[in-house]
């Protein structure tokens, strides 16, 4: 199993979710994060003082998928999340040794 971590623009979440569901990904976990990268944060002025907001709001999607679909899933996320503008984000793939569905105790692929 592969543990996919995708950092995307918040506006893309719904599209990515639907795309993944279409290829049979059954679940994912999402969190609000802040990103730092080539897309520099923006300058803001508050009460006459300029300052830099270093981090940009991003969404982190974590989904564990079967070896087989991992590549497809990554490509799909990439194509759906793409806006060609800086800050589109990254996708990282890690290896997951095991998965377990708490409710049923199922493990491995059944657990996903």
């Amino acid at each position, binding site marked *: 199993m592969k543990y996919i971590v995708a950092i995307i623009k918040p*506006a893309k979440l719904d599209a990515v979710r639907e795309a993944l569901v279409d290829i049979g990904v059954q679940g994912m976990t999402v969190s609000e994060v*802040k990103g730092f990268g080539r897309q520099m944060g*923006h300058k803001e002025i*508050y009460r006459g003082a300029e300052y830099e907001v270093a*981090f940009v709001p991003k969404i982190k999607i974590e989904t564990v998928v079967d070896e087989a679909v991992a590549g497809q899933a990554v490509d799909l996320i990439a194509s759906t999340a793409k806006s060609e503008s800086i800050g589109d984000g990254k996708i990282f793939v890690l290896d997951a040794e095991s998965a377990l569905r708490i409710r049923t105790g199922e493990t491995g692929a059944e657990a996903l």
Partner: protein
Amino acid sequence: MKLLKKVSLAAAAVLGVTALLAAPASAAVTDETAFVLNTFSFLVHGFLVMLMAAGFAMLESGLVRTKNTAAICLKNIALYSVAGIMFYVIGYNLMYVDVGSYIGSFSLLYNPSDAELALINAEEATDEMVAEVVGNGYSVMSDWFFQMVFVATTASIVSGTLAERIKVWPFIIFVVILSAFIYPIQASWTWGGGFLAELGFTDFAGSTLVHSTGGWAALAGAFLLGARTGRYSGAGVRPMPGANLPLATLGTFVLWFGWFGFNGGSQLALGSAMDAAAMAIVYVNTNLAAAAGVVTAMILTQVLYGKMDLTMCLNGALAGLVAITAGPDLQNHFLALVVGGIGAALAVFAVPVLDKLKIDDVVGAIPVHLVAGIWGTLAVGIFGSGSFVAQLTGVVAVGVFVTAVSFVVWYVLKATIGIRVSAEEEEMGLDRAELGLEAYPEFGRGSQKL
């Protein structure tokens, strides 16, 4: 029932005098005392209405999403300020000074009367000086103050409907025109003693003159501005829930509170037992209509949707208030329950209808102020002392004028400087896009703690 929001006072004063001659001097209210009481009534009820600006600000802050909250706060304090200044610069004169049938005087600025200044500056006040001032029935600036706060209300209504996508400056420009010309001109027709007044049209505190006027202006704007991005995309409506409902609730309570000034003060006099008694009746009707509005909305949303919708219940309170505003002098308070309840029901039903029409009204200002305002005005022709035909005429006349002029103004703004932020700015939120800050920088996604 007051046809003319000003003239009536003369009447009141006269009545004071009559009573005076008729009754043993010691029993009646003296002219100067009446003057003081009338003036103080304008001031007290005026500051109540002024607080409605805060009420609208909180209601709208609570019903928009966080990313547009600071912008709506700015718009609300800006519109209250601009409306007051423009009403001083020209609005009041267009509304009340030498009103013919359709419009008042184009003279600029409005200041205290010479008689009052003479009295105030006198080393030693003579009897004549006092008499001349008292003859007016109330202090001129107290009346101006009370009239001014109504203009701001009209402008507040517009900001709620157009929130979350309109640019700040074009909105401000519209408020300038609304408070300097659109509102005063149509108001002169009735409260200024113009043709609608002669026609027998009556609107005690402004269901049509204030609330529907704001509603029509908002409707024209919403039509040209378009809905928030994604709101009506694909099947059905995508809700964009208000971010802070306790603030919206606070705003509604504050509006309710201010409405005692709105309706109560529109009795326009406190210088006699008659006026005092009538004012009390207005207070009670105002409160009962709002209460009926809340209960109606609770029951309706429970029945229609299986759950009570807080935001609709808040709308219900306001719809009840708007509905009773045209005729809060009903002499059987039970009718206030009926008028308020129906007003709220109409608002509750109007909300989804607007969505069907893809008219995106962020806070429900059109159902509350326009729909319930029309109903309340007509209700005077049904339950109240007014004639239905006259009421209908007034509703139509004001509606056509305000909608047409507003449409043109919005259209010109759109064609020139543009009225809508870009899609990116809308996604980012008006706070960051137009103000470069956030309303809640430490909460949720935009947190500046990181």
